[in-house]
């Protein structure tokens, strides 16, 4: 299996706070990687560093064979990295369909401004292709009936589905999902798990950050556990959750909180 993403000593420091501290890992194609850890352990910051929305302080990032440590987020996105956010980021003024089209726009139209601006026929043709891609993404997430709704008219679970649909409309080589099942009911969570599994079957590499350890253990091929910005354990998910360091990171904190010993 070829390596899609390789992090070497990636750190993200905010002053004296080491949100991510010298994380090194390699992800191979077609697998689902889970990232868990207590609140504040640096999971979302790590995704921010990988997607270049959060500047890294040190270390290197290689994605699909290219050193993209200094790339802009938009260049990385065009190189095949798509993501969703911990807090849903949909455009409130656009319909579900238009929000999903946004994911396919750059893939179909490119980054240029002149052609779509001065060639209306060219632009209209590409718009049809974009619509077809968006329709397929909606169908896949089961949200076709919501295509004309505005985001605020949707349940939280459906907002998350729209965000995932926007990400897969970009036809990425790697998908980062930041808490994709947060705020969802059991049935909705199962639906997202099925989507992740079907994308894996198609060979899409995915990184899933979530607090639901049981769900991640069942879903992921490989699990990383973060604590205080560092990877404290990794490997086959059932083995990792039995690791004493992981127990300490979760249960130790809970135990100390229960006893008021902070």
């Amino acid at each position, binding site marked *: 299996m070829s390596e899609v993403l390789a992090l070497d000593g990636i750190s993200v420091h905010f002053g004296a706070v080491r949100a991510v501290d010298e994380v090194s890992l390699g992800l191979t194609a077609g697998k689902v990687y889970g990232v868990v850890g207590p609140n504040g352990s640096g999971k979302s910051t790590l995704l921010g560093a990988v*997607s270049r*929305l959060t500047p890294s302080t040190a270390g290197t990032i290689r994605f699909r064979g290219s050193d993209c440590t200094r790339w*802009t*987020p*938009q*260049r990385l*996105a*065009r190189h095949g990295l*798509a*993501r969703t*956010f911990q*807090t*849903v*980021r*949909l*455009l*409130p*003024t*656009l319909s579900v369909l*238009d929000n999903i*089209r*946004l*994911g396919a*726009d*750059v*893939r*179909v*139209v490119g*980054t240029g*401004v002149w052609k*779509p*601006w*001065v060639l*209306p026929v060219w*632009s*209209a043709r*590409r*718009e049809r292709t*974009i619509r077809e891609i968006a329709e397929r993404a909606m169908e896949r997430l089961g949200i076709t*009936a*919501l295509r004309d709704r505005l*985001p*605020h008219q*949707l*349940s*939280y*679970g*459906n*907002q998350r589905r729209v965000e995932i649909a*926007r990400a897969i409309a*970009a036809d990425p080589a790697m998908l980062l999902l930041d808490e994709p099942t947060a*705020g*969802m*009911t059991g*049935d*909705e969570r199962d639906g997202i798990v099925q989507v992740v599994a079907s994308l894996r079957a198609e060979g899409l590499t995915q990184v899933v950050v979530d607090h639901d350890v049981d769900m991640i253990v069942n879903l992921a091929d490989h699990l990383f556990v973060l604590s205080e910005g560092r990877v404290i354990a990794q490997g086959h998910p059932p083995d990792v959750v039995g690791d004493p360091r992981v127990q300490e990171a979760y249960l130790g904190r809970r135990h100390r909180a229960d006893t008021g010993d902070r």
Partner: protein
Amino acid sequence: MSVWYEGNIVLIQTTLIYALLSLSFQVVLRAGVFSLASVGFYGLGAYTFAMLTLHGTNVWLAFLAVIVAAVVLGLLVGMLVNRLRGLYLALFTVAFDLILTVVATNGGDLTGGPVGLFGVPPVLGTGGMAVLVVIAVLVVWQLERHSLGRSFEALRLNEDMARSVGVEVGRRRMVVFCTSAVLGACAGVANISAFTTISPQTAGFPLVTTGLTMAVLGGIGRWQGALIGAVIVAWLPEVLGDVGDYQAVVNGAIIIVLVVFAPDGVLGLAIRGWRRLRRRREPEPGPPTSAPAPDQTVQERV
């Protein structure tokens, strides 16, 4: 020509000039670039056109020179603007407007000093201005359609998200800034060719508040909003003519009420009303299948 047209020709031409200026504000604000430099480019357009035509340059060559000057200065200022966001950007562009006003005031014979320039031939009639507005609308409309429109909406509402889907932020901000510069300069040309005179006062800071009021009042989301704002600002004082001495007060009160109760502008209010009406006619699909979104998911609006 009808009696009504002859009696209101100044207002009609003012509306067309305002429409160009309002579009110049709207095109940048819609993309999340809080630029108030349109008035600076308005002055640049008016003065450049006046100086050239008063020295005998062909009108069309002078107009072409105005466009080139606006694009060149737009690119230069745009490079600096690209590094700024929010209030810092607004302050920078206000400073740009003020610098151009100072240059015009102290420009000696070239700019006419505090008195300004006058006697420019009225080359653009109402028809010519209307054609300019139609071209401007087509240019702005095309920027609002399809993938370009979505990318500018994303830039305004969530720049990080726009980056994450591959939108080239810097290039797009530069394009809207230069477009705004050209539209502002065209408004300046339209103004001087209608009223044959330009001075530092008529291209000064008060025009910033007029332009901003038009764009915000009409609604920055679509080009129609800019035109609605231009019509309201140009005609409201005339409509309120009977109010007498209290005209300015009533004018201001109406604008305050509109801004408070229609934060998306008059156009946004109309669109929301239309959507509400349509929802009443259509049956609701099934109930939400999960809890409503928590407060933190509400997107920020500009």
